[in-house]
């Protein structure tokens, strides 16, 4: 096992003309982790994966996979990765089994090891016994075959570009379960705009906005650091008037009314909120039932980080 991170990008920039698709991205993905690469459509996720796989070259900066510089390593990197593009393309005249055999053979698999791997992956993809040519597959079947072919070499780094986007709810659940089962054995780096998928299986996440990484941390750490910026207040009565007054204060970035007398306040300055909210409650002459730090979901973190520019 290499001590180097599974993926390390340093100042990674990709420009198309005068448009920056990726802007000085620094990113570290530890080996064995499941890493979510989260961003809205057009944020630069696919560009990042094209650079990691060597399909495109950076304008500046470097990207290393398992310690190898992708720009110079050639097949050494490709032998260790599995890749599913956002829209996988197949030879329509092949069956799923033929494609998996072809993919496995490209990695040097032969004989019984190839047979066993293909049998296992067809089962995993739910394509055992399917003799239809790939040209007749539904998008979901193609996506499942795409995941299977990405696993054919038992890769140390599995790169998935929007892997759940074409799947029905059951297929999505199965794929996320499969990704979760790889934890600790394979590094999984998957891009998505579906927050629930990341929250469900990932250990760590990077949030990409207009080509820039605006946050990167283990999920719990990210939620905790942003959760500390949410305060939940519950008063005995007069909650609507209090919420309106809190909302007018400069450190309150968002105010929501909860059940009964609860008010959820997203704050930019926790210290001021902790001092001023009790004073406001007292000024309104209502009872303070509770006041505590709230918990932010990943969706709220995401919206807070990337929502400002939209």
């Amino acid at each position, binding site marked *: 096992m290499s001590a180097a991170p599974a993926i390390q990008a340093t100042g990674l920039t990709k420009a198309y003309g005068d448009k920056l698709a990726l802007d000085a991205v620094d990113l570290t993905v530890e080996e064995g982790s499941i890493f979510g690469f989260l961003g809205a459509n057009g944020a630069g996720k696919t560009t990042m994966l094209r650079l990691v796989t060597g399909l495109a070259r950076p304008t500046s900066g470097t990207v290393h996979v398992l310690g190898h510089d992708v720009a110079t390593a050639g097949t050494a990197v490709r032998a260790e990765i599995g890749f599913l593009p956002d829209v*996988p393309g197949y030879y329509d005249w092949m069956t799923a089994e033929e494609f998996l055999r072809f993919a496995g053979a490209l990695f040097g698999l032969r004989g019984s090891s190839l047979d066993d791997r293909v049998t296992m992956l067809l089962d995993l993809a739910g394509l055992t016994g399917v003799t239809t040519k790939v040209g007749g597959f539904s998008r979901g079947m193609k996506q499942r075959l795409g995941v299977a072919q990405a696993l054919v070499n038992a890769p140390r780094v599995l790169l998935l570009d929007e892997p759940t986007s074409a799947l029905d709810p059951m297929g999505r659940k199965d794929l996320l379960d499969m990704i979760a089962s790889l934890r600790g054995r394979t590094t999984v780096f998957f891009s998505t705009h579906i927050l629930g998928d990341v929250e469900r299986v990932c250990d760590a996440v990077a949030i990409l906005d207009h080509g820039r990484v605006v946050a990167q941390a283990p999920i719990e750490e990210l939620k905790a650091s942003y959760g500390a910026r949410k305060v939940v207040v519950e008063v005995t009565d007069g909650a609507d008037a209090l919420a309106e007054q809190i909302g007018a204060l400069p450190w309150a970035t968002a105010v929501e009314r909860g059940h009964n007398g609860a008010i959820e306040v997203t704050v930019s300055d926790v210290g001021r909120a902790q001092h001023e909210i009790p004073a406001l409650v007292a000024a309104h002459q209502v009872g303070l039932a509770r006041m505590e730090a709230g918990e932010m979901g990943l969706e709220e973190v995401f919206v807070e980080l990337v929502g400002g520019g939209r």
Partner: protein
Amino acid sequence: MSGYAVFAGKEVREILRTWRLWVLPGILLFFAVTGPPMARYTPEIIDAYAGAELGGLTLPDPTYLDAYAQWAQNLSQVALFALIIIYGGLVSAERRSGTAVLVLTKPVSRSAFIVVKTVVNAAFVSVLLLVGTLVTWGMTAAMFPTAPGSALWASSLVWLVLAVQFIALMTLLSVVIGSAAGAAGAGLGVYVLASIASIWEPLATYSPVGLATQASALATGASASPLWPVVTSLALSLGLVGLAAVVFRRAEL
């Protein structure tokens, strides 16, 4: 090396299991079967339908060389046009469909991708030419009292060099031009320019543009000196494939 063999196997199966198995083979087989009878009976057909209008002009008796000349002409025109059109998407079709991405993120180099495609398809055309020439030879032997094969085989071999050169050219064009139709148009443009250039004798004698003329001359039993066009064409083919590999390695997929 195994990546080369596996990808070459895919190319062969793709030829055998898609439309590629039928189009060029169908064209060559059609010309191989119909050429010799056409050469044998064309004078009689003309005489039967337009004898009176020819005013007593007597057409010479056809010989096996007429059948060979017909074969060489068909190869240098229709078959070459078909080849150019068919191979216009040799690389770009894989880029557009996304199959190149899946292959090239596995341990297959981009140079191998280009070289294998060129070599396998050149081998395919060689087999087609071998079969087509054999059929032409057999049909000619059936139509004429004698049909010595040396002129036919020499002509076909020279055309094979020309075909390989155009496969190499189409490989490069399909790397550079994303549209199969665009690459085919450029390939046809090169064909036209080469045909015009072959009018200038020094070029026809010492460069690849003289190949078609040499192939025709050999088929008709005329004196020919194909050495320089063949050698320069083979060198050009290697250069074109090498350039295609270099351009493809630098391309973004």
